[in-house]
């Protein structure tokens, strides 16, 4: 079991570290960094499913017999670029949140929202 599944387990550990950062850290930028750690774990997991022992990169040439599977690579290749584009959207949101709240800590943002709601309630 260890000899055949160690890669998956290590990658699960990596994903879980990323997930932990996303769940328990309140800072939005840190959450985004954690999300990209999680993402990389998933990418590696996908790629590792296509790997064959003794295989080589799926670029066909005459003196190579076994190739790793190209499909996971195609999916992940596009996912990386999409990933950085969505990371940029997240970062842009964080910048806007900082501009209107003066903080990127989730707790303080929620606190300010609650304060505003109380004031609204008192006024009406």
């Amino acid at each position, binding site marked *: 079991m260890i000899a055949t599944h160690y890669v998956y387990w*290590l990658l*699960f550990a990596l994903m879980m570290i990323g997930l932990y950062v996303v769940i328990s850290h309140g*800072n939005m930028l840190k959450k985004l960094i954690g999300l990209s750690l999680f993402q990389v774990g998933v*990418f590696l997991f996908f790629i590792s499913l296509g790997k064959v022992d003794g295989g080589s990169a799926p670029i066909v040439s005459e003196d190579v017999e076994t190739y790793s599977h190209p499909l996971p690579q195609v999916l992940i290749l596009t996912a990386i670029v999409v990933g*950085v584009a969505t990371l940029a959207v997240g970062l842009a949101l964080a910048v*806007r949140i900082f501009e209107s709240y003066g903080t990127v800590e989730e707790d303080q943002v929620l606190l300010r929202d609650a304060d505003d709601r109380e004031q609204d309630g008192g006024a009406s």
Partner: protein
Amino acid sequence: MTTFVLINVTLLAILIATALTISGMRTLYAATMLTALFSLVTACLFVLLDAVDVAFTEAAVGVGISTVLLLGVLSLTRSREAVTPRLRRLPGAVVVLFTGGTLIYASQDLPEFGSPTTPVQTHPLTDVYLRQSQEDIGIPNTVTSVLASYRGLDTLGELVVVFTAGVAVLALLGPLMQPAEAREREVLDLVDYRVLRVVTGMLMPFILLFALYVLFHGDFGPGGGFQAGVIFASGFVLYGLVFGLDRAQQVLPRRVLWVLIAVGPVLYAGVGVANMLLGGAFLDYDTFAPDDAAAGQHIGILLVESAIGVTVAAVMTSIFFGFANRVESSR
């Protein structure tokens, strides 16, 4: 223990150690730099797992563009994280341990790592991609033929996602802001960064040409539109960082960039429509050269990869410009 296992485990251990350090770090600048290191190690692992195209992309994206974006955002917001209260750590740990345990339990059903008899490898599609593609399309790099031809529709979808994300960032960060006129032009202290400027000036044409080389040689080796776009954009990011945003925007005005962002999806979908007009299915490149299917495929793949490259480069560059504008105007 073979060398492969040894290298694999070592790299994974470095990754996990880096991830743990990042998660415990409160200074976000340092965390960002470690994230760049993390990406480099990931790229090495991709090479080890035979995914050279992916490694290429990860190195350019993870170390180049996302690091620059994160650093830019840190200079706009706060670079120190508040202490995570103990109360919040516990639920996170419980969820993570539970999820991780479930995954490890479920991994019993996964096939052995690297085994040639897994469902992934024995599926008939594998043979189509690796053997038959040589007759259908005739290009050695099967990643490119799957990306641009067999799963061309899928890639069109991904390109639209990149396009949408670029538009979303521009919408959030106010693309119509025109800082150049209002602000006094910075007097650049040329002597101060002489070495950096000369070396950048010398390298940038080669970086851009390398990106184009990667774009047009995706058929034969690792490369293609996504990689080329990202490398091209990082050339411009480098230029913008060293010579200032104003000059970078003079070279590539933002209006031109916006047009280029839209050119990619339009060209890509246009290729599909042209195929339909020629009597084939959407994105059926064979119709470009009815007598010689492989030649038609070559034309189609070239056009589609160029479309991808243009849009990815334009989106990445304008995202960088968007953030950099914010940084400059907040000073």
